[in-house]
């Protein structure tokens, strides 16, 4: 046991004696997690959501197109500007505007006709920044709502709408529509005319045809009135990433000891292989756990991250994650030959692992197939486990599966290490 403790103490002495390693392991993850957290911090109750920049070019200037522009301008999710088509195109190309919506000449009339008849539908031209596809999709959905609202309102009372109803009635017999349907539509249009005559048209501020629901948004977090804290996720993600980087350094330490002949001293002493690898696992676990604890302590003090789930569950996930990382470090040492080449390969492996594990961005934004595949990546379980115990506020039971999986990975890494470790020194 004395040898075991001495080996662990040596690793800790070496780690804390290396200022660069300490900075890399503590300060940098905190700095990067803070940066990511500030980007993905989510929408709090009192904060204004980020708006999508949209340029609108109204070439039609009809009642319908003006109403569409007004609707877009009222939308809280959009920052709408009007521009010429060339200016809008330039702005999208420069990345200043996400989407430009062009309402072409004649759009209002064509849309009104297409409202009741099977005639060619007019186009709305949309120019968008290809790097902002998600915003494009959102704008398309919002635009649909505003167009439906504007056309519906105009058709049930607007001047442009009345003339279009009259025009539709006069052209109905030549429309090619089956007789029965034609009569039904004729009755409907007569009813619309009667309604317009009766009411004198719908007031400008009152829509007739609107999206038939409103959305009440409630972020489901740990408790009611507890806002999502994006720092919780970013500190989990970056914590796991740098935990694995530190594990690489632990593996590098073994390779370094081998290169320097230090491993010969260890192997010539009456020590079991279990003692040698176990001590390294223990020191690796202590160091990585310490990193995780320090990093979350910082997040709790500075960014008000809270363990809204189970504290023992958080501890369990953190410890199993640290054990997994330590055994990953051993595996790096077992598979590596030279320090320089091994560091490059291992760093690449960690970056892939944390990227797919949801350490950079939450895994729920991945496609479904990728979410399934990434279940075989230990970083995914580590991040999900920490998320569950922090901002999701889930109970202890939710820590059990990530813990079992991560300990399973630790066993796998340990077994691979034992089978591949180069014990002979010559």
């Amino acid at each position, binding site marked *: 046991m*004395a*040898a075991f*403790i*001495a*080996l662990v*103490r*040596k690793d800790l*002495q*070496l780690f804390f*004696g*290396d200022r660069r390693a300490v900075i890399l392991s503590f300060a940098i993850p905190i700095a990067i997690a803070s940066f990511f957290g500030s980007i993905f911090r989510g929408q709090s109750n009192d904060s204004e959501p980020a708006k999508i920049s949209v340029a609108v070019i109204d070439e039609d200037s009809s009642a319908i197109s003006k109403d569409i522009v007004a609707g877009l301008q009222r939308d809280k999710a959009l920052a709408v500007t009007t521009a010429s088509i060339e200016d809008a195109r330039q702005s999208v190309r420069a990345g200043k505007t996400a989407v430009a919506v062009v309402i072409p000449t004649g759009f209002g009339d064509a849309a009104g006709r297409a409202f009741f008849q099977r005639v060619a539908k007019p186009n709305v031209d949309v120019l968008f920044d290809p790097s902002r596809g998600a915003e494009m999709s959102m704008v398309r959905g919002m635009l649909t709502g505003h167009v439906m609202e504007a056309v519906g309102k105009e058709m049930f009372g607007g001047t442009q709408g009345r003339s279009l109803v009259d025009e539709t009635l006069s052209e109905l017999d030549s429309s090619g529509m089956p007789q029965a349907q034609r009569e039904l539509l004729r009755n409907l249009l007569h009813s619309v005319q009667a309604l317009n005559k009766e009411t004198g048209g719908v007031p400008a501020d009152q829509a007739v045809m609107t999206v038939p629901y409103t959305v009440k948004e409630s972020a489901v977090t740990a408790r009611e009135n507890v806002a999502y804290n994006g720092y919780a996720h970013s500190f989990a993600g970056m914590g796991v990433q740098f935990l694995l980087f530190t594990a690489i350094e632990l593996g590098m330490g073994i390779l370094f000891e081998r290169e*320097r*002949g*230090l491993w*010969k*001293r*260890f*192997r*010539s*002493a*009456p*020590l*079991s*292989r279990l003692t040698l690898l176990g001590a390294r696992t223990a020191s690796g676990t202590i160091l990585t756990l310490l990193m995780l604890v320090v990093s979350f302590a910082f997040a709790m003090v500075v960014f008000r991250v809270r363990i809204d789930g189970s504290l023992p569950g958080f501890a369990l996930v953190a410890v199993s994650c640290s054990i997994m990382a330590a055994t990953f470090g051993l595996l790096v040492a077992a598979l590596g030959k030279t320090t320089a080449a091994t560091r490059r390969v291992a760093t690449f492996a960690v970056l892939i692992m944390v990227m797919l594990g949801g350490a950079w961005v939450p895994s729920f934004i991945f496609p479904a197939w990728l979410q399934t595949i990434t279940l075989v990546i230990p970083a995914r379980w580590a991040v999900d486990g920490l998320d569950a115990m922090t901002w999701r506020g889930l109970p202890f039971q939710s820590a059990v599966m990530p813990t079992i999986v991560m300990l399973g990975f630790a066993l796998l890494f340990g077994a691979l290490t034992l089978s591949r470790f180069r014990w*002979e*020194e*010559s």
Partner: protein
Amino acid sequence: MLTISSLHKSFGSTTAVDGVSFTVERGQLLGLLGPNGAGKTTTVSMISGLVAPDRGEITIDGVRLSGDIDPVKRRIGLVPQDLALYDELTANANLRLFGSLYRLSSRALDAAITSSLTLVGLLDRASDKVKTYSGGMKRRLNLAAGLLHDPDILLLDEPTVGVDPQSRNAIFDNLEHLKSRGKALLYTTHYMEEAERLADRIVVMDHGRVLADDTLAGLRARGSANSGGNGGATSLETLFLELTGRTLRD
């Protein structure tokens, strides 16, 4: 004390050690000589437990050495060719770590550290980090690290590589002192003058085999006989080249 019997070791298709046998007695320094690739380091590695022999056995006072945790390994001290030290730690911390591997009690470890540092003349630098040491000081500390648990047998793998004459001389004095204390020393080197000065017996190896095992005087007599008794006192280097040839070894 240390008996090596018919050791064999191959790495893939390469035979590194092929039936090596020799003994090292208490109070004796055996010089193990050979060109690069002769099998010296592999032989030392097998004795120190770093490499498992394919065949043959190693015994210490008749007790066979086997396994990682064999307590007999406590009777062996290794001074590797590399400077196997942590530069970032002090000499004291290095020795405390290496002594702990042999389960020395705290008090015994303190005494062993003081004793070994005194022997190599580094006691006053015990609290300094190794990275502040000169090459010669590191070599001496490397030797001290192998002595902490007071082994009966010391394996020294080219322990004077790259050191200045003063440090080399100090190391020689240390080895003479250890020999006088009854330690059995196995010393590999490329420096013939070191073997001439220190070795009680010399084993010359090449291609994994023992080519000669004799005292320096015995080897010289053999060399003299081979040259028809006209060559006077043949140098060890000449004898070595006669045995191993003049082909370059890389």
